């Protein structure tokens, strides 16, 4: 069977050592004929140097306002197979752990009900099935639900939370990232399926300050594992590392607060001055381990550039006792989240992320609004300008 469309430009991208997405689209087209037309349209984009999708469009399943992203071809007559080319978002298994049985069934669904193409995973962390028409959505949704999976977030809602591999496969994890990610996704399903926010809101969970899911760069509420007590030192293993590489130069001298030094052969750490950056533990994992009083820092407000510029997550709660709160069904955290969402709902405007709202009204107003006290950990340094707005209650 010959190719439906000639794709000389895309064919160039089948060469080379790195795995080829063009080959993947072709393999999908072998199982799902409609995807031939995707190759045709993408080739046309390569020729014209512009995308050929219409702007947005509606797609979805009954009872949900989220979980599908509508996509329509600009040339439906020329490429009927992708006239509708929607994607369906599926909440991943926490930590992206799967087994072959589930993945095979999902591959079958993607070929039966869509274009046979998937993303593992989208930028937020959903599994995505690409190339679905509205008429197929309900059957695909039911087939996915029968596997025990549900649709993810999209639009102005709680986006699908995501987390690192955590305690399942990492010694650095200071809390059970997968459990809280799963539990909060379950808890806030309604917010996820039925958009009612000003704009998107993201939770991400990283077990330590290495932040493998980039929580503080791209989630409105980032949970970064940390600890309160002393780093545990195995002096014997420290000595082994000293034999292997220049520990002074590559570990101690790189400590951001210079809180560690050698006394004789023994490593000493001034734990009160440690900022839990993870560098020394990363470099000498056999010798150093985080303390036992574990929890998470909560950072707020990270987002990409649109509309008022990118923001990094900023410290909101220096130490959240996640393990204790988990015993009470996250009562404390849920109260904090509820206060935040109420404040955002009341004072935020359309398409304003919570970080942008804080930037607009000021951190003090936000803290008062959600009932948190100011703390020095929240700032890089105190103000250096004298324009202080004194208030009656501030003088009490």
């Amino acid at each position, binding site marked *: 069977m010959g190719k439906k469309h000639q794709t000389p430009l895309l064919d160039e991208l089948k060469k080379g050592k790195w795995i080829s997405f063009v080959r993947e689209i072709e393999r999908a087209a072998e199982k799902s004929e409609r995807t031939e037309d995707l190759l045709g349209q993408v080739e046309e984009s390569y020729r014209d140097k512009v995308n050929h999708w219409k702007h947005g469009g509606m797609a979805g399943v009954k009872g949900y306002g989220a979980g599908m992203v509508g996509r329509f071809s600009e040339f439906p007559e020329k490429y009927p197979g992708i006239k509708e080319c929607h994607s369906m978002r599926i909440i991943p298994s926490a930590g992206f752990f799967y087994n072959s049985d589930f993945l095979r069934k999902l591959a079958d669904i993607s070929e039966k009900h869509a274009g046979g193409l998937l993303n593992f995973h989208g930028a937020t962390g959903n599994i995505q099935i690409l190339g679905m028409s509205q008429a197929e959505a309900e059957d695909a949704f039911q087939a996915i639900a029968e596997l025990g999976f549900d649709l993810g977030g999209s639009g102005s809602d709680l986006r699908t939370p995501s987390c690192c591999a955590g305690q399942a*496969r990492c010694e650095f994890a200071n809390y059970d990232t997968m459990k809280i990610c799963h539990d909060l996704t379950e808890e806030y399903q309604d917010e996820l399926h039925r958009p009612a926010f000003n704009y998107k809101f993201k939770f991400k969970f990283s077990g330590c300050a290495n932040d493998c899911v980039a929580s503080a760069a791209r989630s409105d509420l980032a949970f970064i594992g940390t600890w309160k007590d002393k780093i545990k030192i195995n002096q014997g293993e420290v000595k082994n590392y000293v034999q292997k590489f220049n520990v002074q130069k590559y570990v101690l001298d790189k400590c951001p607060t210079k809180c560690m030094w050698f006394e004789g052969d023994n490593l000493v750490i001034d734990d009160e001055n440690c900022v839990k950056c993870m560098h020394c533990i990363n470099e000498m994992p056999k010798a150093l*381990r985080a303390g036992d009083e574990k929890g998470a820092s909560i950072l707020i407000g990270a987002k990409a550039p649109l509309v008022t510029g990118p923001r990094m997550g900023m410290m909101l709660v220096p130490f959240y006792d996640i393990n204790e709160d988990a015993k009470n069904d996250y009562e404390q955290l849920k109260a904090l989240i509820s206060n935040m969402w109420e404040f955002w709902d009341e004072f935020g405007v359309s398409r304003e992320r919570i970080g942008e709202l804080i930037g607009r009204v000021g951190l003090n107003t936000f803290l008062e609004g959600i009932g948190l006290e100011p703390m020095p950990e929240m700032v890089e340094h105190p103000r250096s300008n004298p324009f202080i707005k004194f208030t009656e209650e501030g003088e009490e």
Partner: protein
Amino acid sequence: MAEEVKKKRLTDVGPHDYNEYLSPMIKKNYGKWAYHEILDTATMVHVSENGDKLYTVRMGSPRLVSGSFVRDICDVADKYCGGFLRFTTRNNVEFLIEDEKNVEPLKKDLEKLGYNPGGIGNIVANIVHTQGWVHCHTSASDASGVVKSVMDELYEYFVEDKLPSKVRIAFACCLNMCGSVSSSDIAIVGTHKKPPRIDAERLRNLCEIPSTIAACPTNSIRPDTVDGKPGVKVNEETCVFCGSCYTVCPAMPIANAENDGLSIWVGGKVSNARTKPTFSKLAIPFIPNDPPRWPGVVEAVKTILNAYKKGAEPGERVGEWIERIGWSRFFKVTGFPFTKYHIDDFRLGETTMNYSAHTRL
């Protein structure tokens, strides 16, 4: 006569229980891992407090994969891993192996199938990226094609450990920047440089004027009367071509075949290790789209990588290296011109000036 029982429609089933997908060794050692060691660029081992060893073999993926790809990795997982596998945040596949004997045969099988084991250690990590022309309506460039071109050229750095530290490259096809693009060692970002075009008639039917005006970060969209009917106008003097208005209003397309391209950003980092997380900073404001292989972009990334490899101390990320040598020297060693576009004139831009006498002459 039995009545047909209508199957109950499933809804709100919620997230799947991940415990079903944890291998017996992972279940046993959950929260009890003691340390890990990197064995080569494709392999690491996690050792638990009781001595159990879990091997991980990582391989790259193009993120956009076929059902056949999924079946391939499932076959490998069934053969060597009891069917258990996972994905990483950067779209790699990880095979979780309990029996050390299976590590090398698994890697050989992957290579036989044409896949790319690698991506661990001081390497160029798999490039996280967006949908591009393959599936996005706001894209200023393709994503997968640029990524493929860059990774083909840098392939040796995915499979060999020979950089001062890890280098994370990310790609976004517009300023929406899906993914953590703006905090990467090297970021490639789809960029427009012409203002949106206004289709007044479609705008009246499709767009809400106040939200269209509110979408603009520079207040460049104003209400206007077009043919006696309500509409908007764009102040092209102040427009920064971000495309935010098109996101909310389909009648303001900004994609422009002749004027869209890519910008290159450097020195961002997500991890808190040593230094605080930082955004990537502008290296090259614009490189025109040049499909199918984007040679200008590939060359720019290689130039940065080579300068970094030559100049950085072991353990320094790209941003830490630049911080140490200074931005003036970064532009000198890469040969990239410093232009007016590198000076930040957006909100908070004035906080980025050099308020000191420190200078490298």
